[in-house]
């Protein structure tokens, strides 16, 4: 069987034109497309590398990580218990800053999800085949991030056992939700997003679950993988409809992902509050979401490829591509920050100008400058190829962006609310212990779900990766594409 790097005559690495590592596919040679997967892989080794992660004995490190994230999850559940038994007074939310941490956390988490859908849907439509190695776990990240996001507004309603009031369900009070309110739009947007993302993820996973079903040796595994693979046989007639369904889902998820953070931004933009009431919010929020989401994908991908031995699949080129997207969206976000200040100045509006002076020079200036450093300054390192392909640098920038994007939402929510039109109603927002524990605890929920995913579900979309290898292309009529895996 041929391997992905078999065509050495056209491989600049093998030719010694570039002195790079043996598995380096991040070279810039416009005459040769870089391979998507490095190392000597064929269909069999792709299957074995990916399924062994699920079928081997559970490593001890997994138990340790799982125990830590479970502790954080327990802390999250304890905070919810405190909240429900004592009331929303356990939070630092006060009268001017009624939204506080819960909404900051909600926007933070829902934004992170966007990178997963961008990778799975938008890059699919643009035929960016490098997505195949990272789409599965980026989509998983989306779903788990949306789970964390959904918890916060549901708890923020104060009486979460009445959260079903948000939905248009016939009830004994004869009341219906108000469809003219952006908060209701948000309910529809986030729930649709969660549902469609879950379907997209699951449909993509059916063939790989069938692979696990056929390779699993233990009875429980065979039963469960068999149940969820729905009797998939890899029939070409099935694949035909499956590929059409996948394409249509990608086409539907693309406008959906753009709409979700736009609708989230309507929660702010349709209010009358200076600092929120602005038309730039929808594109600004979407760019910020993709920015923050990709930072989270890099944060997860770097350790995952190390610990799970997936360096052949998640290559340096994948990481570099993601870093380029971080740089591009980071520049859009920076531009949006500047535009906000310009608009405030140019509007000649007294209150608007005050809010934007209050951000860098008011009591929350430390949060503002943290945000500027993390979101505007740190990504500038990615102009340099050395930085884009250096693991420590990209982890540093990704962590900065994770922090910075949380602070962006904190700045938007808190600084706009804490000093509104009347100085007599001004107040400072100070988070309580429960606020902070709840935010950290939500990472427990996220990582618990993510670790379960890593242990039991295929982390790399095997069928899709096989599809972009050279062996997947017929040779008799595609000789010139023999370098394959490079489309």
């Amino acid at each position, binding site marked *: 069987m041929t391997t992905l790097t078999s065509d050495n005559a056209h491989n600049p690495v093998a030719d010694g034109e570039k002195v790079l590592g043996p598995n380096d596919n991040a070279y810039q040679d416009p005459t040769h497309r870089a391979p998507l997967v490095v190392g000597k892989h064929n269909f069999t080794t792709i299957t074995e590398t990916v399924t062994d992660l699920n079928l081997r004995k559970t490593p001890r490190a997994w138990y340790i990580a799982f125990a830590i994230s479970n502790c954080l999850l327990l802390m999250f559940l304890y905070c919810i218990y405190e909240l429900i038994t004592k009331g929303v007074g356990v939070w630092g939310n006060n009268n001017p800053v009624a939204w506080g941490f819960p909404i900051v956390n909600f926007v933070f988490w829902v934004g992170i999800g966007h990178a997963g859908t961008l990778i799975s849907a938008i890059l699919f439509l643009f035929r960016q085949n490098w997505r195949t190695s990272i789409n599965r776990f980026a989509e998983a990240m989306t779903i788990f991030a949306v789970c964390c996001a959904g918890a916060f507004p549901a708890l923020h309603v104060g009486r979460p056992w009445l959260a079903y009031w948000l939905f248009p369900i016939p009830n004994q009070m004869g009341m219906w939700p108000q469809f003219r309110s952006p908060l209701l739009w948000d309910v529809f947007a986030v729930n*649709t997003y969660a549902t469609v993302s879950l379907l997209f993820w699951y449909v993509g996973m059916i063939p790989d679950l069938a692979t696990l079903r056929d390779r699993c040796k233990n009875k429980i595994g065979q039963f469960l993988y068999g149940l969820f693979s729905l009797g998939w046989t890899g029939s070409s007639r099935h694949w035909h409809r499956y590929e059409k369904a996948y394409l249509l889902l990608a086409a*539907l998820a693309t406008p959906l992902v753009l709409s979700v953070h736009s609708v989230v931004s309507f929660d702010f933009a349709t209010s009358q509050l200076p600092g929120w009431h602005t038309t730039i919010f929808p594109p600004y929020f979407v760019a910020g979401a993709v920015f923050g989401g990709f930072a989270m994908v890099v944060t997860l991908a770097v350790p995952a490829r190390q610990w799970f031995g997936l360096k052949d699949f998640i290559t340096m080129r994948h990481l570099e591509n993601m870093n380029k997207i971080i740089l591009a969206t980071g520049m859009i976000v920076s531009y949006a920050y500047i535009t906000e200040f310009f608009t405030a100045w140019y509007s000649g509006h007294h209150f608007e100008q005050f809010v934007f002076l209050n951000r860098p020079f008011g009591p929350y200036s430390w949060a503002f400058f943290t945000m500027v450093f993390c979101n505007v300054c740190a990504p500038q390192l990615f102009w340099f190829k050395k930085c884009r392909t250096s693991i420590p640098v990209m982890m540093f920038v990704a962590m900065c962006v994770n922090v910075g994007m949380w602070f962006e939402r904190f700045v938007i929510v808190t600084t706009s609310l804490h000093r509104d039109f009347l100085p007599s109603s001004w107040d400072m927002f100070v988070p309580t212990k429960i606020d902070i524990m709840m935010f950290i605890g939500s990472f427990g929920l996220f990582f618990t779900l993510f670790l379960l995913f890593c242990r039991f579900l295929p982390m790399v979309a095997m069928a899709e990766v096989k599809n972009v290898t050279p062996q997947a292309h*017929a040779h008799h*009529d595609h000789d010139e594409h023999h370098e394959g895996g490079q489309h």
Partner: protein
Amino acid sequence: MVLGMPTKKPDAPSKVVALIAEFDSVDAILAAAEKVRDAGYTKWDTHSPFPVHGIDDAMGIKPTILPWLVLGGGITGLLGGLGLAWYANVFEYPFLTSGKPEFSLPANIPVIFETTVLLSAFGAVFGMLGLNRLPWHYNPLFKKKSFSRVTNDRFVVVIEAADPIFDTQRTTDLLNSLSPICVEEVED
């Protein structure tokens, strides 16, 4: 199981539901599919670990009606969302808020958009599963050793006994002429 030749079971020939031939490359499966198509079979299929480029032409698969189901889902979602907003805020529970009209299209577009996308996605997923007759809880093919690697690295051709021109001997000869790794009978 005998490589190259099917095991003969003269006492129970009626139980054979299909013949299965195993291949190990994309080229082989494409060539085999063309031959089986040209031989005039209709109830047959190929199975592969990933969608093979060009297999639709090689097998003569017609385009699926799935996009129409998605369109149907989308239109249902659009009208459903519109109807839900109107029913809730105009018909069943009208109330005045911020001097806004009871019904205006711009204010309802986000919800209508979301319901349209949601039901289109349901159309795509459940339509695909329905057309593929999934979930399928029992399939005699899974009993076969040569079928167990079809989700890994092998490709198979399956010709059903229910095909009008199926004949155990002649179909076996056809499959053997395609130089497979092995040909097997599938009993139910």
